[in-house]
């Protein structure tokens, strides 16, 4: 229970929305209630109708009202149910729209911390799934429970009106069904849930491992090991499911037995209360028969509530997101055109580690200069870029544009920096829309001109839908080199003075790479360029080369200088050209 309350203590995702569309919510609950009311009322009324009719009333008009009511309830139940389904979905989907916007805003604050690799992609899908999950929390748990509880209160009050002790008895018996059993379910399930997830997760990891390493399994010839490895998780999963099923069967059985007892109790109560005269005895069948339609509504509460632990996880996860608004009161603008990028005495260590990445690093880049940055992976090339962009804050030292600290230019970023990274993201829309994202005000002619500059015109014109071709998910319609060119066109429209190239050619073959680099440096010739690269192909395009090693630049100079002066550079250069004999 404490755990339950703790989930909602700082909740900004579930409770506020229950208040937001109040009227629609009330309507949904009302319709749900009416559905079950009509179901019970139909049987109640029918029971009364035939009991009354069996007394052979001298006039058919005596049973006219129950006849009409029977039909009304018969039609009312499906109609209310249909309306309830529509309104509840409408309500939930409205909430989802709000959720999505909110999730988007929360995630976008940390947008750059999200590198576009598949792991973070998974995290994002997970968050998107969480939202769908909360959607189910309402549809499968909250609504049915609230409706069942309302029914519960109404029934107890109504029966208590006739006989107080019978009302109390029903309070107890139905309370077993709608309160005790659900609580029991959630307790049992909560304990099992975490273990179940563990097993499931274990099996998932195991399977992915097996599938991705299938080539190695095959050539290792360890066929039997491969089969044996799956046996344990398969039987663990089976055991887990078995327990789940058994619990559900016996729980439902118990609930049904309670309803059997309720029927018998009604009969006993009727024998005392309704057998005073013939007219009142007509109500006995009505009361007893109206129990059966309730079974459905009340039984489903246990299952719905037992799913709570999985919803709880989703709620905790989205609540952990930082939804506070961004503080930008000290943001400013660059008044002069960009002239100088300066990194001075920069110190930086990753949080939670002692190992410094940079110690007293200095770098100056004047407008129009082009610099290549090399170094083995793990030396902090990407970290340096993130410091320069202002996504990370230096421990000491400064990163400045024209003497303004980069931290104060964050709102201006898109006007100052254009970024082309390893996998620029293409959205699942047309080529025109994707490129126009660089500058929303660009005319069609300007977009086409940019595409022409990056040498994509012939390709696009050969496509059946031309410029309106949809790039498909992740740009999968196009090859790696073509995707980079599309992103380059976007950057051309963006027209920022500084361009960051973050290993844009790492996954390309040498021919595509060299052609792309030619285009990049040709169209960006008047820009300031900071280029992180993994090898020396195209190095002649730049004015300056820096090798980053152990937080310092250990080789620096123009490519020609380095080639003359540094044997190591020369060797790497020859290797890259394929000249090295070793």
């Amino acid at each position: 229970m404490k755990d339950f309350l703790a989930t909602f203590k700082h909740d900004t995702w579930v409770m506020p929305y229950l208040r937001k569309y109040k009227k629609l919510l009330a309507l949904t609950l009302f319709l749900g209630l009416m559905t079950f009311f009509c179901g019970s009322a139909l049987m109640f009324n029918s029971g009364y109708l035939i009991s009354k009719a069996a007394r052979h009333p001298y006039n058919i008009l005596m049973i006219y009202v129950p006849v009409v009511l029977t039909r009304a309830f018969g039609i009312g139940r499906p109609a209310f149910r249909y309306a309830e389904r529509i309104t509840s979905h409408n309500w939930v989907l409205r909430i989802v729209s709000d959720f999505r916007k909110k999730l988007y805003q929360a995630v976008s604050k940390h947008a750059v911390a999200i590198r576009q690799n598949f792991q973070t992609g998974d995290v994002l899908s997970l968050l998107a799934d969480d939202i769908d999950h909360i959607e189910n929390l309402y549809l499968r748990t909250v609504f049915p429970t609230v409706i069942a509880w309302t029914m519960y209160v109404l029934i107890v009050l109504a029966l208590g009106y006739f006989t107080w002790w019978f009302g109390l008895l029903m309070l107890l018996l139905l309370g077993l069904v709608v309160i005790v059993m659900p609580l029991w379910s959630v307790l049992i399930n909560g304990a099992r849930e975490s273990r179940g997830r563990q097993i499931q997760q274990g099996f998932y990891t195991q399977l992915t491992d097996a599938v991705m390493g299938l080539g190695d399994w095959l050539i290792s010839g360890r066929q039997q090991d491969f089969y044996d490895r799956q046996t344990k998780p398969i039987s663990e999963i089976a055991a887990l499911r078995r327990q789940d099923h058994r619990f559900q069967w016996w729980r439902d059985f118990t609930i049904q037995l309670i309803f059997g007892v309720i029927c018998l109790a009604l009969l006993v109560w009727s024998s005392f209360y309704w057998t005073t005269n013939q007219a009142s005895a007509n109500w006995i069948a009505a009361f007893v028969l109206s129990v059966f339609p309730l079974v459905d509504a009340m039984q489903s509460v246990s299952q719905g509530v037992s799913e709570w632990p999985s919803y709880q996880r989703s709620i905790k996860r989205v609540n952990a997101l930082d939804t506070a608004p961004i503080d930008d009161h000290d943001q400013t603008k660059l008044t002069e055109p960009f002239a100088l990028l300066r990194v001075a005495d920069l110190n930086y260590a990753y949080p939670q580690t002692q190992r410094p990445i940079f110690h007293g690093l200095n770098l100056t880049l004047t407008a129009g200069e082009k610099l290549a940055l090399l170094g083995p992976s793990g030396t902090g090339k990407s970290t340096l870029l993130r410091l320069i962009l202002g996504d990370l804050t230096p421990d000491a030292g400064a990163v400045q544009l024209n003497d303004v600290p980069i931290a104060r230019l964050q709102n201006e970023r898109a006007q100052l920096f254009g970024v082309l990274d390893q996998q620029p993201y293409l959205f699942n829309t047309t080529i025109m829309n994707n490129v126009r994202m660089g500058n929303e005000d660009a005319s069609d002619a300007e977009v086409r001109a940019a595409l022409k500059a990056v040498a994509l015109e012939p390709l696009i014109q050969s496509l059946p839908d031309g410029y309106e071709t949809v790039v498909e998910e992740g740009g999968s319609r196009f090859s790696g080199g073509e995707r980079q060119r599309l992103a380059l066109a976007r950057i051309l429209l963006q027209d920022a003075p500084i361009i960051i190239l973050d290993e844009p050619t790492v996954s390309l073959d040498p021919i595509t790479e060299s052609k792309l680099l030619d285009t990049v440096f040709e169209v960006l010739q008047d820009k300031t360029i900071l280029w992180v690269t993994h090898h020396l192909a195209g190095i002649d395009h730049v004015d300056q080369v820096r090798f980053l090693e152990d937080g310092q630049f250990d080789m620096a100079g123009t490519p020609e200088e380095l080639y003359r002066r540094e044997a190591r550079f020369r060797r790497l250069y020859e290797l890259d050209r394929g000249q090295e004999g070793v």
Partner: protein
Amino acid sequence: MFDPALFKLPGMRRLTVILSLLAVIEGLCIIGQATALSVAIVGLWHLHGLATIVQPMLWFALAWSARQLLVVGKNHLMYPFVERTTGDLRRRVMQKLYQLGPSYVAKTGTGNVVTTALEGIDKVQTYLMLVVIKVIDMLVIPWVILIFIAIIRWREALFLLAIFPLIIIFMIILGYAAQAKADRQYVGYQRMSNHFVDTLRGLPTLKQLGLSRQYANNVYQVSEGYRKQTLAVIKIAMLSTFALDFFTTLSIAVVAVFLGFGLIDGTISLLPALIILVLAPDYFLPLRQFASDYHATLNGKNAFAAVQKMLALPVATERQQLGTQPLNWTANSSLSLQAVDFSYDGAQPALKKINLTATGFQRIGIIGASGSGKSTLINLLGGFLTPMPGHGTISVNGQPVTHLSQQAWQQSFFYIPQHPYLFHATLAENIAFYQPAAGISAIGRAADKAGLTAWIKTLPAGLETKIGEGARGVSGGQAQRIALARAFLDDRRKILLFDEPTAHLDIETEAALKQTILPVLDQHLVFFATHRLHWINQMDYVLVLDHGQIVEQGTPAELAQHNGAYVRLRQEMGGAI
């Protein structure tokens, strides 16, 4: 409703018979429970005392409990069968996967394969558990109840009989209408539901472009559009549930009114009328229960079909043409391919007329522009792909084979791709993957030869450190070194297949790694596909591929003399600098 493949499952027929019998008994319990309850109510209606209805109340309690016990009993009976079947399916899927090999995974996608084996079979389990019992109930219980009602009074029975097919017809018609509407909207629908994830994944790019703030409203608008479209579909889709609800509740109302008039006319007395009224909802119950799980069963049915389809895929046979033991590859051994074709789709050849002969410990470089078929050729040589039957011949040491997916051949080579897969296990287990029995000192020596020692010293648990899970924490260069350590550990495998091992590495890492790779190439037959030209200097034979064909082959020196494809390719690639 019932997939015919279900009946082919072992034990299914026997189970069907038993479950049907239990359903009949359940039907009888329902009748007993309704009758006992009605007798008790009528007793009270006649103003008799509580003592007179004790007996029917007991009978009711008995029948009610028996009925609920039967429900549990049927599940208990069904479950071992379901468990056995799904466990069996999982095992068969894994075995099939092993036979189909990595080319199947590449084609289908890792995610899809895992989903089929995990969630797919979970769905099959739900499907089996739900569908069998519910369908049998639906086919048996209503008839039992109907016959009983007919014995009491044929008119109501006739009405109930007539309404049953009507409901089903309406549900089917409305179901189709909803499907048609959903299909028409599907494309837009799908795009909108994917839009959100698409936007989230593209967030870094949006931020770079300065669009991330204004896009929040776009997300909301698209989601609202999605809501409206979804509601439009739901309105129709829910109609079939509405029809079911409408006809069943209205039927009960109609029966009640019929009975009321019958009672006034005196053609029926209260007891039988009440029994019929109590039974009417139970008559429809199995149908409603089946319909409420219809979607779950539909998913399960599709998953079941997908699994069956995978299990029916053809696999390479004749995998033991070279025996089952690893080959003893020596300086005199030879591999020859003559006019071999390969195609991914059975129509368009991806490799054409491949002729090559490799003998002893040759080092063969494979070069070509991207898309020329280098990786395809390596995969063919590794037996991960099988050539088009009847196109050309392959022989190993003079022994003709239909493909290279030979157990003996595959146990004789190492395959080192661009991204070697690292298992979610300790570093030692990863290195010893091909030699699980190897001792820790041998593993340490192999790691040392592969240049891993310095790195291992920085790891918290040294060789016992857990790595893997998408190779997290292991750089590209280190992953290559781990793959090389596997080769150092097992020196009986004399054939090496490299597929672009250094393409993605930075130049310094590549230079250092090359020093480690070079000694491995000695005394091995090497196939080395690459576009990093410096490797060619270490090869003694080169195949130049273009559009799936070997356009030139010879020693590097020979090829350099010709002004052919080799020279042109070198120029084009070297032009990058």
